[in-house]
């Protein structure tokens, strides 16, 4: 009995999408930003959203994390079948959502080491933030990201360079081990070595774990290292094209205008 139940649950889980965004309409202060977005990410998958500035990429990320400034007018967001929309940001974090911020905020006086410990305790439980396992994961992750241990006594994002901020976001992701990681322009402002390091971090914490990731980016470069399963192109709050990694290459070569023309042409 027990066995068949277990198998049954496993099968159910693997069929169920990790993240399901359905018909999402949202805006801020009465201005519509998202016009019906659908994205479905399965366990172990990495997707990317590409688009121009102002197309609604960051808004999508913020809404999944639960930013209080945005109003969701219609649609659904589910993580492993659980509705996220009624949850506070910290509850979503505990469900397994993680957002790597485009502009991480500074908190002067709050030490990195202390903050990491507190965040891990809050999301994964007190035990996870104690003892050898935590210290080893921390050490290993920092090594992978080329961060010196002196980093731990600095204040959160206070006086960090652009690259340090992005690495710190990835460090948090590696320690918090989310089910869904949303990376909002984590590659912007990074040099090629930085992009490679960050991509290594993403690959090691998503690939083969059953977790998923949504990468938001302008450029295809990071996608050379992460190799997404699907790419969605967002224009004016709508996904206008979904494809494999060749879509990124086409966009890089021909620009968004090409895609717009192509779609218009298709409509006529």
């Amino acid at each position, binding site marked *: 009995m027990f066995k068949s139940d277990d198998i049954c649950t496993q099968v159910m889980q693997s069929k169920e999408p990790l993240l399901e965004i359905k018909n999402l309409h949202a805006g801020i202060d009465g201005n519509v930003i998202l016009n019906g977005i659908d994205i479905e990410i399965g366990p172990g998958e990495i997707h990317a959203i590409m688009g121009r500035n102002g197309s609604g990429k960051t808004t999508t990320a913020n809404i999944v*994390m639960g*930013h209080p400034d945005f109003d969701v007018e219609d649609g659904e967001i589910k993580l492993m079948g659980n509705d996220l929309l009624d949850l506070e940001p910290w509850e979503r*974090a505990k469900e397994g959502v993680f957002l790597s911020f485009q*502009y991480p905020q500074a908190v002067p*006086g*709050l030490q990195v080491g202390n*903050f990491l410990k507190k965040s891990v305790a809050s999301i994964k439980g007190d035990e996870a933030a104690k003892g050898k396992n935590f210290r080893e994961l921390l050490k290993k992750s920092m090594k992978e990201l080329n961060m010196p241990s002196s980093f731990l006594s600095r204040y959160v994002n206070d006086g960090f360079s652009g690259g340090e901020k992005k690495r710190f976001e990835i460090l948090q992701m590696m320690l918090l081990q989310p089910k869904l990681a949303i990376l909002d322009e984590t590659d912007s402002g990074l040099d090629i070595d930085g992009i490679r390091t960050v991509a290594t971090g993403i690959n090691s914490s998503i690939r083969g774990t059953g977790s998923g990731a949504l990468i938001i980016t302008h450029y295809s470069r990071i996608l050379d290292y992460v190799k997404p399963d699907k790419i969605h192109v967002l224009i004016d709050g709508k996904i206008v094209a979904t494809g494999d990694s060749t879509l990124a290459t086409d966009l890089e070569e021909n620009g968004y205008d090409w895609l717009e023309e192509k779609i218009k042409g298709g409509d006529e």
Partner: protein
Amino acid sequence: METSQEARDVVGDYKSGWHDTENSTIRFDSGLSEKVVRDISKIKDEPEWMTEIRVKAYQHFIEREMPTWGNMSMLEQIDFEEVCYYLRSSSATENDWDEVPDEIRNTFERLGIPEAEQKWLSGVTAQYESEAVYHSIREDLVAQGVIFLDMDSGLREYPEIVKKWFCSVVPYSDNKFSALNTAVWSGGSFIYVPKGVHVEMPVQAYFRINAKNMGQFERTLIVADEGSSIHYVEGCTAPTYSTDSLHSAVVELVALPGSHIRYSTVQNWSANVYNLVTKRGIAHKNAKIEWVDGNIGSKLTMKYPSVILKGEGSHAEVISVAYSGNGQHQDAGAKIHHIASNTTSKILSKSISKDGGRGSYRGMVTVSPKAENCKLNIVCDALILDDESRSDTYPTMEVANPTARCEHEASVSKVSDEQLFYLMSRGHSEEEALALIVNGFFEPFTRELPMEYAVELNKLMALEMEGSIG
């Protein structure tokens, strides 16, 4: 947050707001007169010269106007006739906790004082209302000649040292409240550290007002002889009553050549206490005085720890934080006078206001014409948590010597929604996120405190942030 639950179980919002049954042996009728002043002196069996200073100070208090600055409308609400100027709850100062009367001992046990003494202090004095009820100091320090007594015992046992320094740093005529304190002072600490002796672990004084309408007027004098050092820590609490109490202390520090005095305060009076305190030190050649001053509680605090840099090469530091909540005004700051050459000073002031609270930084730094090559550094930061709250800065600098190097920075900031969202996305509720920001803001102060105090302060601030999100 376990601590807050514990605290709430005990007293609602203000953690130290419980009160024990008043069991006073002697309680003066409310109100002030020359007779009250003489009676206090008589009860204490003081030398004639002390009685005379008290009476002179009383005369000055009567004649002196209220300050014409600061929060005058709050100051005017003080009714000096309603205050009880002397209340003794225990007939003796004990040096064994078991001898302290039960109710009083319970109070200090609930505040964790005996435990702290065993773990990390060189000596403890605990004052309940007007008198010290418990006192102890480590034997090895006594053997080295360190004197640590309550002020009354100090006057009895070392009248010549007390006479030499009493009122030498803060004359009774300094301000209305220093006059009041000099007239009716009772309790406080008297410390003398002999030449070259370093007191490694801090000594602590604990002040508790328990009775209603009580006035507590402790008087502290610390003399650090040449090349010595000491760290003195004081904590203050009171129960929450609907009527006001008055705490008006005077602290005098004398740092003789090459010595180092650090004086740390975590003031957490309940929101019905007026806290009007004069704190000043004189630093002689190459001496160093540091005030580490935390103001969390009280209704109105007016306190500007000051240092007179009298000797060449002396150094002053004032690091302060103030938290002003609903109905509170923390008017705090620092005063430093560079009298001698090559003297240096640093002021770091941080204030947080919330729920309509008001924080003011009031600072004065002067450099005398003859003081060459002085260095001054002043940083004031204010954090305002909502639109109802207020923060003001009143910095004054009078630099009469062109060789002085002055740096002054001031900032006012608000907690941004983006900062909160960032922290919330890491699993912290809105209140926890706010506490992380606030404790971070206070960190330059808390890192200067002994660890036990720093932990306590962080818990206290987390408690203050609770229920703050609408």
